[in-house]
């Protein structure tokens, strides 16, 4: 059998071969880290939708661990910063905060913001002889986030990039105390930065997401404190930036490798683009794993999991399961049946799914058209992030044809 180990040679460049081996030889197994993993589509989906499972509690974990993670003089921000991160909440708190965030997000009109972001990014890069696809995939969501937050040139590109990336890394599987300490100091910065934006939001003439969050919280009686609202803003910010960057960079890599995809995109009508966007989401699986905890004793396929067992659900593997998807390792632009799990499923399914789909549908044609002038740089292989839960590129150099 293949024992799951993300440090198997070549995993970060291409995890799918290893995941396929795990799925076909031992689809429910205890991995190298001594915890359970599920690889089959059917099992992963079942656990995602089962009321017997909840999410892991990140903020509680931090509250318990802060004394051993942080140096004595440091102000603790880890538990506070993640307190209202929706994907780590269950029950009443989850429903309440999700409803609040959803109501605010729905008031924001994304389509023009996305179109402006794509245009601004092109304008900035129009004369470049060499580009990094990851920079494009970072700049576009960054412009969108600026509109969400109602500021432009919000702060240094590097600072935002570092903050957002560290927040994503902090949720990975193997994280050291040093990284958590860095995350803590980034949160300290974020509380002052987003705190100021949030407090000023009401006075802003042009309403944006922070204004909507503030109004919904006040007028519909949610009563989140300012700190809880800032925690929520950080998670929306991180989710908006990191997942978009990862998904976009992986999609563009595929488009640059296969010119027939670029041609397909150029000629596709609206419906064909929507179908292709779903296929790209399945293929890229930006969030590769998610964790669930048994709230009671549960049995799956004859294996009993006692209450409290953590299960690692491999979404990336489920999305390549041949039982559900024909030619799972190929991008099939007009795939007919595509119930992928890239946005999860059930209670915790991705809150930003609608926005994410909107984004891909809006940028796919214009960005592809722009990149037709470029090719992958010779002798510069793609550089993949060494993260396990989130998959994306660190850099991908392209040069003008």
């Amino acid at each position, binding site marked *: 059998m293949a024992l799951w*180990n993300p*440090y198997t040679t070549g995993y970060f460049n291409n995890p799918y071969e290893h995941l396929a081996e795990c799925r076909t030889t031992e689809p429910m197994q205890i991995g*190298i*880290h*001594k915890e359970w993993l599920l690889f089959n589509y059917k099992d992963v989906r079942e656990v995602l939708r089962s009321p017997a499972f909840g999410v892991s509690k990140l903020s509680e974990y931090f509250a318990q*661990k802060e004394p*051993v*993670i942080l140096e004595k003089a440091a102000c603790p921000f880890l538990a506070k910063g993640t307190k209202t991160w929706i994907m780590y909440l269950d029950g009443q708190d989850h429903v309440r905060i999700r409803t609040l965030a959803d109501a605010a997000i729905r008031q924001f009109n994304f389509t023009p913001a996305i179109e402006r972001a794509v245009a601004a990014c092109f304008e900035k890069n129009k004369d470049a002889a060499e580009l990094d696809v990851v920079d494009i995939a970072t700049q576009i969501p960054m412009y969108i986030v600026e509109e969400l937050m109602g500021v432009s040139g919000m702060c240094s590109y590097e600072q935002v990039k570092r903050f957002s990336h560290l927040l994503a890394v902090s949720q990975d599987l*193997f*994280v*050291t*105390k*040093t990284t958590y300490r860095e995350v803590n100091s980034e949160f300290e910065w974020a509380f002052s930065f987003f705190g100021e934006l949030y407090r000023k939001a009401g006075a802003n003439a042009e309403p944006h997401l922070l204004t909507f969050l503030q109004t919904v919280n006040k007028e519909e009686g949610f009563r989140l404190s300012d700190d809880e609202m800032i925690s929520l803003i950080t998670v929306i910010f991180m989710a908006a930036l990191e997942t978009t960057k990862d998904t976009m960079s992986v999609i563009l890599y595929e488009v640059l490798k296969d010119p027939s995809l670029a041609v397909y995109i150029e000629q596709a009508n609206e419906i064909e683009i929507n179908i292709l966007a779903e296929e790209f989401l399945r293929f890229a699986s930006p969030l590769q794993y998610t964790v669930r905890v048994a709230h009671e004793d549960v049995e799956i396929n004859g294996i009993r999991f006692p209450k409290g067992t953590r299960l690692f659900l491999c979404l990336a593997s489920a999305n390549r399961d041949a039982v559900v998807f024909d030619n799972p390792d190929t991008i099939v632009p007009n795939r007919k049946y595509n119930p992928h799990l890239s946005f999860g499923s059930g209670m915790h399914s991705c809150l930003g799914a609608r926005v994410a789909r909107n984004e891909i549908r809006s940028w796919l044609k214009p960005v592809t058209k722009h990149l037709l002038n470029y090719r992958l740089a010779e002798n510069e292989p793609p550089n993949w992030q060494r993260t396990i839960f989130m998959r994306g590129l660190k850099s991908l150099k392209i040069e003008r044809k």
Partner: protein
Amino acid sequence: MNNQEIKNWLVQKIAEESDIQPETIKTDMPIESFNLDSLSMITLSYDLENALGKEIDPTVFWQHNTIDKLAEAIETLP
């Protein structure tokens, strides 16, 4: 670091992490008996990587169950 130095390093660091006296640690005892949580094991593997200047998987503590075996495995890494 040679084999003995790696062992000494591990004993010292494991003692610090699990808040026990280094003298009570025997290098042939199962690592799980020191009650290290995953946060500590991952942090130790990175610290070791920095101390030795060679690449060490963060899963190394799960792969080798005593300090003796761990030191031997680490010493033979390229």
